[in-house]
């Protein structure tokens, strides 16, 4: 009995000492732990977490773009007056349209925009002359000139007037360029016709010269001169 207890105690002690002797080196354990946690981070965090993060960013961008685009389109279609808070959106839409439309339609577009500016000036003049409220003025002003122009609506009208002139000059420039192109085309056409005519005359002259030469050989008189008339 006592021997059994003694043997059991010895066995337990040996197992305890065996386990303690077989324990890993703490330095290795620390390094392995670090590696394990590092391998956990990039593999599992990047795939799920980053996709989720980017999807949020993309959603925000899409919503922002969609919202701005819708507001701009709405303001443009409604042709909001200069006093409206959506006026800047209208201008963005107009600028985008001018950039996107084909070259041959640009003069008309500039002319339409000039007409719009004129209409805006007409709309804004009585309103601003009678009651230039802060709200109305701030809606019209650009941030850079806001402090200088809060007292009077005149600079705003001046600005609109400048923009109107700009649109008109743009339309005129485009028209002039178009005409120039058309004139150049006509000139090219005329030169082509003239060149054809020269070729034809040369051919006739050559034929006449040959005919005269034959006649001379036969002893006859010259029928036509060989002059080249251009």
């Amino acid at each position: 009995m006592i021997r059994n207890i003694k043997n059991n105690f010895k066995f337990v002690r040996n197992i305890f000492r065996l386990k303690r002797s077989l324990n890993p080196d703490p330095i290795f354990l620390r390094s392995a732990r670090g590696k394990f946690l590092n391998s956990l981070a990039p593999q599992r965090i990047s795939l799920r977490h980053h996709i989720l993060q980017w999807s949020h960013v993309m959603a925000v961008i899409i919503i922002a773009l969609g919202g701005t685009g819708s507001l701009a389109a709405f303001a443009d279609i409604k042709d909001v007056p200069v006093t409206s808070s959506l006026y800047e959106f209208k201008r963005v839409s107009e600028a985008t349209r001018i950039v996107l439309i084909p070259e041959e339609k640009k003069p008309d577009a500039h002319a339409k925009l000039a007409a719009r500016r004129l209409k805006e000036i007409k709309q804004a003049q009585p309103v601003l002359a009678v009651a230039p409220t802060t709200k109305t003025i701030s809606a019209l002003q650009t941030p850079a000139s806001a402090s200088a122009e809060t007292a009077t609506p005149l600079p705003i009208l001046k600005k609109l007037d400048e923009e109107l002139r700009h649109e008109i000059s743009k339309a005129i420039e485009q028209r002039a360029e178009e005409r120039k192109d058309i004139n150049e085309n006509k000139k090219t056409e005329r030169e082509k016709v003239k060149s054809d005519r020269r070729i034809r005359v040369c051919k006739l002259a050559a034929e006449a010269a040959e005919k005269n030469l034959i006649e001379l050989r036969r002893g006859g008189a010259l029928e036509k001169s060989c002059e080249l008339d251009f």
Partner: protein
Amino acid sequence: MKEPTELNKLAERLKKNDPQAGGEIFDHFSTPMYRYFLVRTSQKETAQDLMSESFSRMLEHIDQFNIEQGNFNSWFWRIARNLLIDTYRQKKPVQSLDSMQDAGIDIVDPTERILPHVELQRVLKIIKTLPDDEQELFNLYFVADISYADLSEMMDKSEANLRVLVHRLKKKIIELSN
């Protein structure tokens, strides 16, 4: 020592990429797993490699772990045991010790390399003389501290059966030691 339910919760957190859970799982398993590999391979470097590889495999397959099919403890130990079996399969045939000694190579007993005490070396040598299934049971129960419940799941044996087997094994080792 962590309870099986606690380990299952840690595994679920690890699935959701919780580094703290990863750290706790590492602290719980690393030492017994290293001891298990060291006794089986008798080489510190191999045991270290196998331990690191076990954690990598566990992380690779953590999404496949399902609580309804068993607890995390036995699932992870199964990965470790399979890894050891794969390593043994891939190992090239080694030269016999006699032929190496004949060739003038100084042979040191592997148990002497890993254990400093003569008495412990003797115990380990006795363990190495046991049949393979008994060696495995000794390593898993006495060296790696795996409970009867988890061993039952891992070895497809009832807990009562395992208790009898462990008792017999203990008796056998004591007899061989005297």
